[in-house]
């Protein structure tokens, strides 16, 4: 309990240091830091419209991908390829969405979502096979497949899936029936609710189920999980990684069916990478990922406003995101060292009497 409070403290500290550094940097560069942060705040939380239509809207892919990253890392595997799985999901979803003419929404919408899940899962299948068969590190294979996926989208929107006029590098729009409905009174699509449900399901899996517990054990102590817990490590990691890919693919499907209504080349502004920060800042806890996903989404939503209203390049918020993660890692390292010093000082290998 105490450690989780300390972890929360470190996360808040990281966020504060990131914003402080942004303010100091802007001030030194001759900008009005106060006005910039005010614009950032306004863009993210200033109005109901901004909060739902900008911040929460952007949080959907961050939360879903963050959940997937956490799922894999809880078992000890690193999925750095969410960007690729997101695109694979988006391609599959767009293809179904474009060809869903005449379908009822209650068929079209699940089909699009399912297509995204299948796309993301399939994109993860290759790294999983490579890992199980040949011991190829998933960090490398998933990372490299990102580039392949980006190239694939680029080819799709200029080739097989290009819109009928053949002028723009984008797909034809998906049919009306395949477009996610908005939550009443907002420009926020239903995918947000799905992300919240996914977070609750994952919370339940980790906290309550035998499978989720064994996955956690595998991540914390692989040898003990296999010898004492009889966990079949490879099989479990494979399932977790595929689930991770599925969530990223679903995020891609929601982006197509809830936001862009077509497949574009730069559909993702790096969600797959930002979401790693989201998951780490949340210490891989699904409920916390919802919060950190919203925080990071707010930063990115506010960045646009900051650029518009204060003339500050939006990319500065990526610096903030980077600083947050660095402070977090430093805080963890410091906590570990502090703990070790404490153990040495009391001579307490036994620790507890």
């Amino acid at each position: 309990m105490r450690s989780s409070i300390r972890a929360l403290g470190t996360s808040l500290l990281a966020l504060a240091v990131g914003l402080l550094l942004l303010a100091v940097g802007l001030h030194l560069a001759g900008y009005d830091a106060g006005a910039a942060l005010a614009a950032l705040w306004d863009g993210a939380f200033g109005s109901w419209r901004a909060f739902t239509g900008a911040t929460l809207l952007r949080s959907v892919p961050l939360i879903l991908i963050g959940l997937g990253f956490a799922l894999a890392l809880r078992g000890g595997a690193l999925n750095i390829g969410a960007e690729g799985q997101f695109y694979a999901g988006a391609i599959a979803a767009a293809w179904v969405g474009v060809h869903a003419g005449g379908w009822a929404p209650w068929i079209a919408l699940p089909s699009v979502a399912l297509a995204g899940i299948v796309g993301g899962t399939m994109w993860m299948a290759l790294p999983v096979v490579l890992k199980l068969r040949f011991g190829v590190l998933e960090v490398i294979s998933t990372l490299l497949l990102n580039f392949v996926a980006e190239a694939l989208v680029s080819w799709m929107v200029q080739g097989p899936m290009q819109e009928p006029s053949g002028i723009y590098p984008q797909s034809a729009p998906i049919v009306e029936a395949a477009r996610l409905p908005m939550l009443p009174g907002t420009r926020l699509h239903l995918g947000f609710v799905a992300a919240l449900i996914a977070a609750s399901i994952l919370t339940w899996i980790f906290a309550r189920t035998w499978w989720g517990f064994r996955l956690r054990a595998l991540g914390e102590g692989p040898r003990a999980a296999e010898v004492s817990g009889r966990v079949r490590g490879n099989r479990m990691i494979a399932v977790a990684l595929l689930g991770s890919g599925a969530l990223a693919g679903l995020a891609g499907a929601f982006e197509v069916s809830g936001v862009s209504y077509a497949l574009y080349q730069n559909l993702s502004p790096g969600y797959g990478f930002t979401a790693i920060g989201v998951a780490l800042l949340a210490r891989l806890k699904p409920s916390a990922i919802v919060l950190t996903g919203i925080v990071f989404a707010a930063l990115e939503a506010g960045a646009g406003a900051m650029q518009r209203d204060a003339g500050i390049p939006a990319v500065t918020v990526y610096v903030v995101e980077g600083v947050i993660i660095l402070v977090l890692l430093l805080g963890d390292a410091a906590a570990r060292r502090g703990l070790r010093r404490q153990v040495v000082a009391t001579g307490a290998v036994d620790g507890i009497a």
Partner: protein
Amino acid sequence: MLLSLSGISKSFGSVAALRGVDLVVRAGEVHAVLGENGAGKSTLMHIADGLLRPDAGTIAVDGVPVRFRSARDARRHGIGMVHQHSTAVPALSVMENIALAAGWPVAPGQLRRRTAELTARLALQLDPLQPASELSVALKQRLEVVKALASDARILLLDEPTTVLAPTEAEELFNFVREFARSGGAVVLITHKLDEALAAADQVTVLRHGVVALAAPRAEVAAESLTEAMIGGAISVAARPRPTGDGPVLIQCDGLEVKGESTPGLRSASFTIRGGELVAVAGVEGNGQRELLRAVAQLQRPFRGLLEVARPIAFVPEDRTTEGLIPALSLTENVVLGVGRIAPWIRGHRVRRVDWSAAGSRTTELLEEFDVRAKGPGAAAGSLSGGNQQKLLIARALERRPRVLVAENPTRGLDLQAAADVHARLRSAAAAGAAVLIYSNDLDEVLELGDRILVAANGVVVEAEAGAGRQRLGEMMLRSGRPDAQ
């Protein structure tokens, strides 16, 4: 007198590994240092090659007192160490590995010539360009010897050099070693194998519990007195009544073979164990007992032969914190992990759920019942002392209500009280009808615990006759018999 160690003492924490040990190695001789695991052989060698510093005592080379601050220091004084396991860098070639060890410049042409000269001079052929990763186990060892001698060592320390070698390869190594000594060098051969010491050595020193139990020229000692010095006096243990053999057969193996990871593994085991029996396996580490127990625990697949084990099986690994417990998880979580899905706190069957409050209260009971000292069931397993961790492991294993209980070195590193508690638990598990199978490196423990005693030697497991004492078990353990000779 080439190398002399006198009055060497060394403690790790409160454990005295060496107490006033003297060792004198003369030019032209092969000196065997014999002892059981944990007798202090390796500590002594690491003091001689500069890896460890003694708490007391002096080291002299050629009669001149020296003080080694590092392995490099020792090498400068002509001491070369051949470690038990290969220390070569796999990705580098033979000659690069030699250059690394000897501090030679690495210009390829010159290095190749120099390596060829060295291997020719030593009559230990190696291809200079072959990557170390491609060498066979025996050639890797040869590379270790060449590395040790590359910087003109005059004193060669060999740590259990034949563990990984086939008999003919071992014979070649000993021929080289004798030749090296004949040409004026000195060799220290660390071994727990009696017949090796007898075959190769001119001088024998036996260590036991950190003190020299015997030091004499080879020609003046008989095999029996060496065994006695190693194992300890011929204390006879009163033969215990065997349990009546009417329980059901719970473990049965016949002609069982199990491959080992770095050792030859288990080459032959045939026996049955009935419910109510506590069977202890004696053996020096690496003689097949580990593979036997892991196969019985269904953690390793038999390679050949018959193996039938009743379920449920519970297993207590000797490595408590990497294979037994997960230090970062709570005691409850560790109990849940180990008891598995047969536990009462597992609910549902399509999607199995864990009832954490039921598991937590049962863990609290177990802590009480098994006298595990901990803050509570939520404490991290890593915060427990070794003794308490072991008690928790035993509690968890028994929570499976096992018909077969398998435990490796169940009291390694425990103090006397904790060890006695563990022994009592194992006995009562057997008394309750389980078949209990353990191995221990500690012969006293085997003698104390085992209703029946099996001995593992060179991958072959045979049963000791009822009432066999230390002396007899020692002989059986140290015999490097072949399976067909049994």
